[in-house]
């Protein structure tokens, strides 16, 4: 018989800690339950498949996926530069990159407006070239990418730092060039973090509201994403708004689930626990 230390269970915590934890959990869970109770279940399917709802859902999926692709495209190099190089002002740059994470979305929208808007920093030049971004689906994608990018950068940079450079160093001494090291070692090692980062980015993009509203506008099929549709439906058809909100909640739950499922694979500590049948070399 083996004696194993019993894991510290809740009973050993001070009771009030458990009580506060329960209250905190209820605080998060109850609103979701409340929303589920408000959903007009018999009409749920018609409500979420109405023309405008379907258009919003489709647009949201399309733009969020595009925004996620942009996040991966730009976020991976950004995370690499932040994690693997050191230069003056790096800390400042990191803080700035993470800014959209803490910025009120409307403020982000205004910032984008002053950048890509018709009279914006870049927008005026783009406008002269005949490229108009405001009121287009592109504006939605930009808004979403803007707020979602930090999630990817943050999650990937952390993973890169955790994995460290030891494997990369081994790769280099084995004759691999920088690109080979990146492609065959670094990226596969942080792939789980990249996936969970991308999933989080997608979720953030899907939920983007403020920046889109401020910067992109709201037109069915072009710029009116699911959150904007919910916001608008609330005015006249609360049942539809609640049903659509619930879809967003379901997507969010699925996304969080996926992100958590992927995470443990990201544990890249060197294999220290050999399988039992292979105890001897």
């Amino acid at each position: 018989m083996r004696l194993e230390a019993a894991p510290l269970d809740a009973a050993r915590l001070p009771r009030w800690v458990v009580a506060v934890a329960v209250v905190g959990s209820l605080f998060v869970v109850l609103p979701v339950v409340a929303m589920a109770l408000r959903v007009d279940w018999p009409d749920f399917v018609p409500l979420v498949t109405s023309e405008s709802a379907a258009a919003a859902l489709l647009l949201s999926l399309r733009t969020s996926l595009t925004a996620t692709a942009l996040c991966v495209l730009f976020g991976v190099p950004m995370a690499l530069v932040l994690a693997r190089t050191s230069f003056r002002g790096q800390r400042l740059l990191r803080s700035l990159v993470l800014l959209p994470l803490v910025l009120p979305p409307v403020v982000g929208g205004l910032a984008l407006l002053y950048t890509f808007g018709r009279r914006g920093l870049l927008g005026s030049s783009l406008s002269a070239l005949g490229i108009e971004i405001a009121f287009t689906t592109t504006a939605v994608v930009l808004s979403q990418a803007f707020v979602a990018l930090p999630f990817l950068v943050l999650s990937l940079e952390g993973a890169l730092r955790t994995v460290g450079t030891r494997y990369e160093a081994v790769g280099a001494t084995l004759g691999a060039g920088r690109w080979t090291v990146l492609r065959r070692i670094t990226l596969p090692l942080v792939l789980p973090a990249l996936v969970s980062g991308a999933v989080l980015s997608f979720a953030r993009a899907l939920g983007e509201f403020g920046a889109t509203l401020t910067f992109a506008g709201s037109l069915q099929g072009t710029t009116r994403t699911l959150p904007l549709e919910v916001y608008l439906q609330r005015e006249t058809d609360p049942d539809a708004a609640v049903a659509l909100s619930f879809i967003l909640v379901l997507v969010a739950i699925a996304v969080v689930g996926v992100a958590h499922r992927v995470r443990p694979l990201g544990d890249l500590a060197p294999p220290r626990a050999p399988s039992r049948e292979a105890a001897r070399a």
Partner: protein
Amino acid sequence: MSLTFTATLAERGFDVAFELAPGETLAVLGPNGAGKSTLLTLLAGLLAPSMGRAELDGTVLFDVGADRRTLVEPRHRGVSLLAQEALLFPHLTALENVAFGPRSRGVDRTAARATALSWLDRVGAADLAGRRPGRLSGGQAQRVAIARALAADPSLLLLDEPLSALDVTVAPAIRTLLRDVLVDRSAIIVTHDPLDAFLLADSVLILDGGRVVESGATAVVLTRPVTSFGAHLAGLNLVTGLRTAEGFRSEEGWVLPLADTAPEGTSLALAVRPGRVTVSRSAVTAPGTACIAAEVDDVEHRGDLVRLHAGGMAADVAPSDVVALGIVPGSRMFLGFRHEDASIYPL
């Protein structure tokens, strides 16, 4: 010379120079922080010296001075590094790990796999080809790592304490494997175990505080150490003294008759294994035996023996003797050894 190396790294107080003959294996020994790993990372190209120059088979690895700065990228150095931990790429199978080097050097997939398989076979791990590192034991992983380092066909193989992370039951087999693959191969092995040096290396470099304190052929350095640190590594008692009319006279004042004819006044060193030193309560005056009175400073367990330190010497005795003789720190004992068990050589 296969390798010439001179490097200083100001911020780490590192200042080392040495040479390596083709096909020779050099063991680098020294305490923690002596600069052993620094030496390897400088050679591998993972660290740049503040000044220095290294050449491998006539090709410059680095050449850094006041007016020049050549640092060849790690991948172009022809130097493979085998670390304490196998560091196999966790997302690749054993075979893919070993094929990584050849693939990186432009060998096509099929040929690289063939090379990898032959190396896995060579290290006795062919049956592990399809396994991921997560399903390999420490010894298996190190075998694969050795195959991977060699499959890259390096001009110089660097080994950073390759056995220290292994189970004691596994280390001997890997040591034998290394002994086999290091024959006729230029290699540098960092180790803290003199046994590795004895079994694997032709010559030895002992570092301390970023400097070379001893170097030379393994047999010489590890049987006739000239520094106390070298003696410690070699597991020997080192007593320094002078050639006098009576023979060897230690700094502590005891005397050992000597047959050789070294001139009087020569500085001499005497080396004797702790296992050959006997301990008794009374002086042993048998002919051909040295006997030194000393107070016991310390007693420590070493495996199935007890090592006691007295008068600058160490002696390994059986635990039963410790009890029988009543050895405790502070007790006065006589240490003795036979003349033929000691080697005496000029410093």
